[in-house]
């Protein structure tokens, strides 16, 4: 009898514990997923008053309210790109911590490579010029010397004792 009641008690308390834990578990699962989404969006958005912190990291009032707006929108089922776009429409390029590669930003992304290429071409041409013997110069080409010059050089060469 005593054994039976203690078994019943154990079963009941187990059931109670499971009942209490179940809603907690299911809701955290759901919340975790949407919070992960909120975090993902907020980490990419720049807090408008603190220059170089994300909305997620910042403690400013504006960032907290922005975070709340993101949370509301995620819970309302809005897509990630729609939420990003909402802030972009209002704060412009500035709002993205990582600059986009769209539009005129493309210039910023590609200009260094174009510059590098132009520099390489210029360097290549310069190297080619250094390597080829300079035939045009008056010193290298005896035919450009005047007869008097040639005569003087010959005289000087004769005078030198090698």
């Amino acid at each position: 009898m005593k054994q039976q009641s203690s078994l019943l008690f154990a079963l009941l308390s187990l059931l109670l514990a499971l009942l209490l834990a179940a809603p907690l578990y299911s809701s955290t699962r759901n919340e975790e997923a949407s919070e992960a989404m909120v975090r993902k969006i907020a980490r990419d958005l720049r807090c408008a008053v603190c220059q170089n912190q994300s909305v997620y990291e910042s403690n400013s009032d504006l960032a907290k309210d922005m975070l709340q707006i993101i949370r509301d929108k995620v819970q309302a089922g809005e897509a990630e790109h729609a939420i990003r776009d909402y802030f972009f429409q209002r704060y412009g390029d500035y709002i993205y911590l990582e600059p986009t590669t769209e539009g005129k930003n493309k210039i910023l992304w590609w200009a260094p490579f174009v510059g590098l290429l132009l520099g390489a071409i210029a360097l290549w041409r310069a190297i080619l010029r250094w390597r080829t013997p300079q035939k045009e110069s008056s010193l290298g080409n005896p035919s450009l010397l005047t007869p008097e010059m040639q005569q003087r050089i010959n005289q000087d060469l004769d005078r030198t004792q090698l």
Partner: protein
Amino acid sequence: MKPIWQSILLLSVLAILALFALGLHNDPREIPSPLVNRPAPDFATKALDGQPIRLSDHRGKWVLVNFWGSWCVSCVAEHPYLMELARSTRARSDFLIIGVDFKDTEQGAAHFLARHGNPGYRHAFDPNQKIAIDWGVYGAPESYLVDPNGVIRLKHTGPLYPGWFEKMALPLLQSTPSAQKEATP
């Protein structure tokens, strides 16, 4: 051959220096608003006077939307001009001012208006700055000039200064016809 290259190099260095010089005058804290020349986000909420207020009820008029809060120090500096502007434009049928008191408490706002004077126009109450974020506000005060078709035509970050209306707003107010074709729903 060589002088061309040299002048190209010189010109590009000068161009870069000129860009840097221009950049020095930029305020890194100022974020250019993409909302200028776009339809103003509408708001319908409770005003500080307890009655509902809706921006789109004022289509057909130029509306100066001024974002402020009792916690904002620059708003105190700006306030005398807003008082003056409200007084001098009260007779105009084509212009009105609406304040948006954001991130504030009703008591705080009432205290501010009692202390620094009540300019007489209405204020939307925006305690969790939903309207402010919807308008791309990141500081206070910020002011937007909305044309009769509900399009934002001008944004001013920081306190409005004496003479602002005549210098910045009046030329736009006098060119209403051009606003007609720019307005897109």
